[in-house]
């Protein structure tokens, strides 16, 4: 479903992503792990269309998407949950989630301004879908609160709900569990398992290897912009290079990264 072939991207002198290739099958949950600065988010931004690659090709659903804008890719079914809280201010939680319905709805300014039938019927469908997504992440009771007034953990879940409301075919989750409390993490893991059971293809960036081991079919390990290992969670966690890269990460933390 997703083929990344020899993709590179640098910032100034920094090779954030170097000649990375990976291939994700339909229905697969792929984890991307790696120390801070390994290039995981950069890879996501390349797939989501927020960055363009210096070289290499990304194929999605059998078609190259290198030239497609981010919103085009969203319309094609790629949804992203960004690292950190990325909620829309000045809107309620429900409205935030409703923005996610953009890809599968069509009506524009004229239909909205004149309240044409198309607006009414789509608006009803958007509301239902948003309600459903809010329930799935456990935010239904908070739906009419200002999104920015929610605690961080809920803002993160709100992003997941927004992504789900888009009815994605490929879901990119960038450290969705960070900032969540233990109970929330379990709930999120259950949700991801649920989505996997429903056949949704996912790319999951995560630091917590145990979290990943439980959810992912395969794991790709990035370090310094390159793929250093790939395999099942068991294979990867016993790989020497992976262990070394992670110890390097600890050092970086100690230096106040």
């Amino acid at each position: 479903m997703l083929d990344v072939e020899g993709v590179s991207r640098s910032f100034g002198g920094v090779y954030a992503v170097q000649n990375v290739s990976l291939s994700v099958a339909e229905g697969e949950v792929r984890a991307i792990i790696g120390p801070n600065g390994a290039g995981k988010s950069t890879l996501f931004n390349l797939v989501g269309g927020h960055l363009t690659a210096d070289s290499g090709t990304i194929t999605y659903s059998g078609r190259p998407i290198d030239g497609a804008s981010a919103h085009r890719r969203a319309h094609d079914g790629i949804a992203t949950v960004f690292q950190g809280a990325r909620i829309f201010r000045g809107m309620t939680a429900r409205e935030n989630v409703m923005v996610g319905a953009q890809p599968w709805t069509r009506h524009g300014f004229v239909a909205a301004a004149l309240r044409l039938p198309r607006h009414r019927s789509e608006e009803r469908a958007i509301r239902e879908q948003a309600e459903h997504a809010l329930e799935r992440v456990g935010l239904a009771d908070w739906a009419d609160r200002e999104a920015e007034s929610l605690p961080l953990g809920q803002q993160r879940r709100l992003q997941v709900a927004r992504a789900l409301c888009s009815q994605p075919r490929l879901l990119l989750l960038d450290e969705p569990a960070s900032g969540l409390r233990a109970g929330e993490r379990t709930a999120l893991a259950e949700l991801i398992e649920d989505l996997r059971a429903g056949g949704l293809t996912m790319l999951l960036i995560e630091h917590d290897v145990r979290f990943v081991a439980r959810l992912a079919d395969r794991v790709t390990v990035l370090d310094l912009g390159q793929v250093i290992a790939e395999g099942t969670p068991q294979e990867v966690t016993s790989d020497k290079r992976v262990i070394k890269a992670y110890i390097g990460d600890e050092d970086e933390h100690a230096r106040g990264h």
Partner: protein
Amino acid sequence: MTAEVGTVRTVRRRPDAQRAVGLGLGALVAVLTLLAPLVLDRSQLTVYILTGTAAMVTIGVSLLMGYAGQVSLGQAAYYAVGGYTAGLLAVHGTPPLLGLLAAPLVAGGLAGLVGIPILRLRGHYLAFATLAFQLILLAIVGQVDFLGGDIGLQGIPQLSLLGIQLMTAQAYAWVTWVGVAVVLLITRNIIASRPGRGLRALATSETAAESSGVPVTRYKIVVFALSAAFAGLAGGIYAFFIGYLAPGSFPVLLSFQFIVMAVVGGLGTLWGPVVGAVVITLIVQTLNDLGTRPGMPSYASGVFSYAVYAILLVVVLLFLPRGLLPAMADLVRRAFGRGRRAPAAAGTAVTVDDSTTRQPPDSP
């Protein structure tokens, strides 16, 4: 459907009783607005009409800056474009009603074209570009003979609707405020809709909005054109009412005035711009009367009107950063002991935090 996007962003769904009060208040305001022309004298009517045209432009400013987060310091340019479009067509014998309809279309269309290059800019750069456009436009109008040049375009006929000529200021007052109602209705419908949510989303983060499927560039151009169309409609009414247009009628100060009105009333609110337009107009009028009293120096009224914008803007930003209307709504809500204060709305946040869209969203 309007519950979550009222004039103030209510935290909880508005209960029915409160909604009924809101509807009643709205009806009362509408009736009073329509009755007012019957009791106002000629000079008061002029002020009343110009308040209405200012409100129309300011509603567009609130939509553009408050909801969509795009700055424009040149809205008076589109007010002028609307005015000249209507005026020019009418002077050359086009039925005035067609001229009035053409005014928002031409202003909106021009803004759409101008928007394609300049809406790539953000924040201060966008502000300067919109301002520069107004200055360029005024300079050109001053040079072009068939627009009347610096002397102005004269002899614009009266507006006539359905064969009835509007001779009285009263009639203009009604047309103007019906126009305000139309503009309010369109704005209300848009902000609580699919495209409206897209606009409000891109105000916070263009990257996140794009990734949710919002065509950010297109939406920004459309909202810019729409706000310009509101200004254009106001300009068209102005042209017929005043009957004379000159570049000097649309100074940069006028653009600032619209922004002050929007900010004072409450950016990113529906009714705030109307409140702002009324309050600012009344204050400026009062000071003008004071300034032209015998014994006052000749420059007094001019200085007063400049000073009042500056002072009001500073005072409101310091003490009521969300604007008058949200502050009043909070006061009312607290007086009735209901609910908590709404958290600081993004409405006032004109600054686009996400000024580096092309960078990864989480760049350190």
